[in-house]
Structure formats: structure tokens, C-alpha cells
């Protein structure tokens, strides 16, 4: 059995981690014949869907287990047809004083040809989009559509999979997500959440597994998993795979 892992920096490994060989997918190398980690730091759920579909369509997935770690719904991805690049947008709070200090920071993958000037324009429009157009409901709606797209794809193609997430606010299988939804008073979120197969999710998110314990995270200011944290995540993921698929 081979492993496909996708997600954000919690799966790719943060900059502060000494080596990418310490990440949880790498620590599962003894349990799988091959490990493919296609996560990217700062990556969005849009990117996770795109790169997972691309991987699945280019590989024989009969012998794969896909572990998908969903990330913040506030991240987005846009296609720039002029340079054929995907541009990722991540919310960045410049300081805590006011909403006006939130901007959308834009990132690109290695080798992208998009110019700095274009990125500035995209960042400005993305910030307007976040401040005045999109609501919490819209971000969550978009996340649920991404989750259901991959869930349905995996089921349709009989691909073994496990879903998990970065934090409790993005963890569909827990009670926190439902609680936040009820504040939005939006029927469609509840309906889509009802379509999610929570038997294929880990019980709790990565952040809950790490429990803000300094033994497992890099520091109080950087809650990414350290090496020991990744070891804990790898152990928990492996346990869940065993529980679901035997």
C-alpha cells in the first residue's frame, strides 16, 4: 500500500522544522511501500482538491491510501491565464487593531512566472473580496463543496481515504464546526455538512491532537508540530487507518 498525503504546512512541515524528513507522512514510510507528500505550506483547500485530482488521474490509485488534511477556509487559489500559474491567497492580519489591517497575502509555487506587479494587483482585489464580499458563510460553503467534491470522487473511484484537518474550526466530524454553523443561520451549510461522511474522518483535528502542548509544538507563537508532534500525528493517523480499513 502506498500513501498519498496532501494538506498545508501541518503536513508539508513548517519552516521551523529542522528537516522535512521529520513530517508525519515521512514518519509513516515504514508502514507504506511509497509515500507521496504533495502538501504545500500556506496551501488552500482549492489547491488540495486540484493537486489531489491531478495526482489521482496520473496514477493507478488501486494500491493507495489518500490522507487529506483540510486547511483554513479563508485561503483561496486563483488561476492566472496570462502566465499559466496558480496564485494562492492567505489572510494576513498585519496587526490586531482593525479590520482594515487584514490583507490577502499571495503566494505562488516554485517556478511561477507571474510578475510582482500582477501579484500586487491580485492581492489588492483579493483583499477587497475578503473585506466586502465574502462572509464566513461563503468561506465555509466553499470549503464544504471542496470536501464533498473529493469525498464523492474517492467513493466513485473506490479510493481508500481518510480526512482530517488543521484545527477544530475546520473539522467537520467534531461538534465545533456545527456550533459555528448554527451562528451563521444558514440552511445550506447544515445540508452540506449532513452529506459529509464523518466515518472517514479522524475523531479530532491536528491542533486538538497536539493540544497546544509545548512538547509537541514548535513554540507558543508557532503552533506547528515539532518532530515529536509529527510523530504523534503519524501514530494517530496510522491508528485511524487501521480502525477504518483494518
Amino acid at each position, binding site marked *: 500500500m502506498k500513501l498519498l498525503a496532501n494538506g498545508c504546512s501541518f503536513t508539508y512541515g513548517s519552516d521551523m522544522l529542522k528537516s522535512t524528513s521529520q513530517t508525519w507522512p515521512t514518519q509513516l514510510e515504514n508502514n507504506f511501500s511509497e509515500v507521496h507528500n504533495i502538501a504545500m505550506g500556506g496551501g488552500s483547500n*482549492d489547491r488540495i*482538491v*486540484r493537486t489531489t*485530482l*491531478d495526482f489521482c*488521474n496520473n496514477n493507478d490509485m488501486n494500491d493507495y491510501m489518500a490522507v487529506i488534511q483540510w486547511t483554513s477556509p479563508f485561503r483561496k487559489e*486563483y*488561476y*492566472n*491565464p*496570462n502566465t499559466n500559474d496558480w496564485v494562492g491567497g492567505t489572510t494576513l492580519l498585519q496587526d490586531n487593531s482593525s479590520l482594515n489591517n487584514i490583507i490577502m497575502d499571495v503566494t505562488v509555487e516554485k517556478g511561477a512566472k507571474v510578475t510582482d506587479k500582477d501579484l500586487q*494587483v*491580485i492581492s*489588492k*482585489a*483579493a483583499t*477587497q*473580496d475578503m*473585506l*466586502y*464580499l*465574502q*462572509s*464566513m*458563510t*461563503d468561506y465555509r*460553503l466553499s470549503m464544504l*463543496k*471542496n470536501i*464533498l*467534491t473529493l469525498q*464523492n*470522487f474517492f467513493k*466513485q473511484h473506490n479510493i481508500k481515504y481518510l480526512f482530517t484537518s488543521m484545527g477544530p474550526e475546520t473539522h467537520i466530524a467534531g461538534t465545533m464546526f456545527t456550533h459555528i454553523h448554527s451562528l*451563521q*443561520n*444558514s*440552511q*445550506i451549510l447544515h*445540508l*452540506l455538512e449532513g*452529506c459529509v461522511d464523518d466515518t472517514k474522518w479522524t475523531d479530532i483535528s491536528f491542533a486538538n491532537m497536539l493540544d497546544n502542548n509545548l512538547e509537541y509544538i514548535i513554540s507558543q507563537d508557532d503552533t506547528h508540530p515539532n518532530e515529536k508532534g509529527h510523530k504523534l500525528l503519524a501514530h494517530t493517523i496510522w491508528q485511524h487507518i487501521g480502525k477504518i480499513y483494518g
Partner: protein
Amino acid sequence: MNLFVNGCSFSAGHGEVHDQQGKLLPPLDYVWSNQIKDKFDSVTNYALAGGSNDRIFRTTMEYFSKDPTDTIAVIQWTAPIRFEVYNELFRTWLGICNNATISIRPSMSNVIKDEDLSVNIHMDDGLALEKFRSHKAYNKIANASQQQLMFLKSLNDYQIQFYKNVYVLEQYLKSKNIPFIFTSMSFYNHVVDTQSFMSFDTIETPPTKLEIDLKKIIDKSQWTEQPFTGYMGTNYVSNQDHHPNEEGHRLISEAIISELSKRNYI
């Protein structure tokens, strides 16, 4: 057997959206779904002029969550460039309908200006919409919508959202064993490949690998052979208004009945 319809003006009819009390107007008699109402016990038409695929997705799911019995769904998807956002301030959905498809072609993107684009914002409650237009948030929302179209999202991004809506709704209807057919307004977003459509848009915005991957997983057997513009031909209102006229709606209704019969739904 009952019929549920959703779509845009091609299924709602063109013209006024609200009555004088701000309530949504029902589809007029000439609309294709009304031309075939005798074949069904009831017809429920949720289509809205200017409505987006996001709205079609949302309201169809909301309708079928009530578990209506013995109901066939005919879903007419619309222009991918329209979208819907939830406004926390007014606690309602805002439909964003951009009216400048031609101006956003990549080859023209360097020359378009704010004034080249017009944005229509819709609320189901017409009186609330009137109040909203004079609110300071209105211009900010309209401006952000234009910025999104001009500088943020490409046609490919909108198409990707469209495919996700189609795929997730398709799987939802199948999971609930609801008989359905999907169709679309025009050749541009008709998922069934046809040889008759080639325009500047398809030349200038070739699909990304993601669009190809998503299109591949959509069940084409649930789609009508042609979009509405294919069935209605030149039977439109005028050279300035390409909505189907009464004869156009009749031709569409015939095609829909034929597609439903072909699948033994009626």
C-alpha cells in the same frame, strides 16, 4: 408525478423580477415549464432571472431537503460568471450578476476600466434591495464584485466553481434517488461536448487541467443533448434580447419532454 425546475431567466422568463410589494414574480404563462404543466400533477419553478449557479445549487438542495415525493428535477445551469454571497449585515443572499462577459477576455484585460463593467445585485426581497441600494455598503460590495472579475478571478476560476456545483449537486440527487436531468443556458457551459460551439472565449481561455479533471467526473448521461440556445434556435425576443420568445419556450418544452421520456421519467 411532480416537476421541479431551477435555472435563470431562460427558465424564469425575462422581464420584471419583483412585483410592487417587492415579492418575487412567478414565471409567466409563456415560460417552457408552464407550457408542459398539464403533464404533471404540479410544477414548482425556482428559477430566477439573473440567478447564479450558486443560487441554483443552494435552492435546489434546500427544496429537496424537504423530501418532496414523486418529483423529477430539471436543472438549467447558467453563466458561470454569476455568483452569490451571503451578506451578514442584511442576513440575506446577494446575487451578483456581472454584465460584461465580452470585456473580460484576457486579450482585453489590459484595457478594461471600472466603467466597462456593470454589476447587478439581487435580493429576493425587492423592498429590502431598494433600501440596500442607498446603504454605504452597496458601493463597496459592487466595487469588490467588479475587482473580482477584473483582477482576481479568471474565467477558468468561475468555470471550476461551476463544475464543483454541478458535481456535488449531481451526487446529492443521486444519493437521494431523485430522478433528474441537467441542461444549460448556452453552449458555453454545456458539459456534453458539442462540435457546434467555438468562440473567442474558448480560444482565449483554454481549460486548465483541473477543469478537464472535474469535467471528466461529471455524469454526462444526465445531461440533455443540447443547451436551451440549441433547442430554441433563432426564436429569441429581438436582436438585442436573445432570451427565448414564446415559440422558443415551446421548442425548449418539447425538447425537455423528449429528454424526460427518453429516460422513462414520464
